């Protein structure tokens, strides 16, 4: 029963932040659907696409051409990615917060195994990102139903695949944050450094896509395995492999976190 108790405490501690971030991401989906509906109904979709810079058009392979594709933007827009990944990073950095505040002494003075604190943060990260992704999907579907008239170009399957891939990317960076927090004595450096690494990896992937000389380094970034345009276009069968790669990465960093926290001085 220790793990649920720790999870409940952890959720209570962060619920205000989590609910706020979930609200931002849900609202974003509603806004995207509303904007897409407006552009479609006013016939300005093609004008909007024409306004986009050439490089963006090249990178997105014309995915803004349809209403369904516009809705999908809510799952790979940089703001969405950063907020989502940031949530995972913050939630997973809790072991360092426990050490920083000293509450780890009170918890571990009881018959609670160290690994449970790491497992608690891992579960929290997995549960919250999955729940937020689920809320985003629900918000997209409900917005399409109520704000826009139903559209056959919107595929729930595609949206779900995008959401799952986004969750997997967040888990990798969350696991990196967990590993950092299992070594650090303060939360801010653990989460902050991981956030900077995430940002650097995002731009590494971006560079790798537009600059051939950087292309070999692209696979080092977890964002490389989030091929939104391919999912939307439904081409290639790499989605499952990408997810598996991301899960493997998340597992490696999680194992590092468990080992590091079990061996460290608190």
């Amino acid at each position, binding site marked *: 029963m220790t793990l*649920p108790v720790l*999870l409940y405490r952890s959720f*209570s501690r962060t619920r205000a932040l989590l609910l706020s971030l979930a609200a931002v991401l849900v609202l974003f989906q509603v806004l995207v659907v509303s904007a897409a509906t407006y552009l479609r109904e006013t016939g300005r979709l093609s004008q909007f696409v024409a306004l986009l810079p050439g490089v963006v058009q090249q990178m997105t392979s014309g995915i803004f051409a349809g209403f369904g594709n516009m809705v999908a933007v809510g799952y790979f827009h940089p703001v969405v990615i950063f907020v989502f990944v940031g949530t995972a990073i913050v939630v997973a950095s809790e072991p360092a917060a426990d050490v920083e505040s000293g509450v780890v002494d*009170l918890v*571990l003075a009881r*018959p609670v*195994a160290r690994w449970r604190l790491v497992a608690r943060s891992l*579960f929290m990260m997995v549960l919250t990102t999955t729940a937020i992704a689920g809320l985003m999907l629900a918000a997209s579907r409900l917005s399409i139903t109520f704000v826009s008239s139903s559209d056959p170009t919107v595929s729930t399957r595609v949206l779900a695949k995008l959401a799952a891939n986004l969750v997997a990317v967040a888990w990798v960076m969350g696991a990196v944050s967990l590993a950092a927090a299992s070594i650090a004595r303060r939360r801010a450096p653990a989460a902050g450094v991981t956030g900077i690494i995430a940002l650097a990896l995002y731009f590494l992937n971006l560079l790798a896509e537009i600059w051939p000389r950087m292309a070999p380094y692209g696979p080092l970034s977890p964002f490389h395995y989030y091929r939104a345009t391919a999912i939307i276009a439904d081409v290639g069968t790499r989605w499952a492999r990408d997810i598996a790669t991301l899960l493997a990465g998340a597992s490696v960093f999680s194992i590092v976190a468990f080992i590091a926290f079990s061996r*460290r001085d608190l």
Partner: protein
Amino acid sequence: MLSTELATSASEYATRLTPDSNVPPVVRRPRDNSRDVLPSVNTLAIRTEDLTKHYGPVHALESLTLEVSRGEIFGFLGANGAGKTTTIRLLLDLLRPTRGRAFLNGYDCQRESLRARASVGYLPGEMPIYPDIDGRQLIAFLAALHTEAPDPEWIDTLLRRFGLSEIVLDRRLVQLSHGMKQKVGLVQALMARAPVMVLDEPTAGLDPLMIEAFCETMTELRASGHTIFLSSHVLSEVERLCDRIALVTGGQLVKVAGIEEIRRDFPRRVRVTFREPAGDPPRLDDVSVLQADAREWRLEVRGALGALFEHIEGSNIADVDIENFRLEDYILRLYKERQ
């Protein structure tokens, strides 16, 4: 499966936090009194063997070998940075030793960490808090982490004894004064009635009434066979409560002694004044002369004063002033000797 378990736990946990009850509600499972029964009479409550902790070039603790028997209140003394907290954190497996071993209730603090920690109650030197919850919620949360739920009646007794009213318990911990937080800390440390209680500066910030309540509680717990490992700078309190003390300085154990033994062996200062000139002070084994003139002797006497009184019997004595034993003097002397 997990979400169902979590939801069940969360609702159960929330139920325990109802503010109506007089005590912080905890899961009322049948109390297992066997926890109070000591695993083996022969097992020491605390034992360390060559316990050492280095932080790079800093030797925080060096080869500490110590034994604390069951049912004793043991004072662990030392200046700031002497290695007291390091020792405590090694006992709780919060730190990993560079060398040596530590045992709580016969369980290896590292290899059998969970069993060792199941038999200990701990008050940190500075009471850490979750800023978002109140005292009741903290106690309920920590109680839920025990394998066996603490006795609610005992918690109620502790809350009343330390003057933690409903109003105080319903306030967020960040809003509480240092003393109030310390009281919450004491309740959480003592609530499981663990066989061994490790208390780091337990009376810091407490008012005299609460110190009295604390001392009474410690005496009661000792009487029921619990072992108290007490780290404190308040030497009057240590002298009053402890059966034995250990002094650490610079990470090394300097002295382990019983309070009665110290009291017996530590020289007392005696000043004898005479109405008319007296002779020389006596040349007794346990008496050393600090200063002597015709009408006043200043002496240091080890042990009983009978021999001295027999010697001055019949003299025209104006006054005899005997300084009470103070642990502080003894500790200061040890420090000076060490330096």
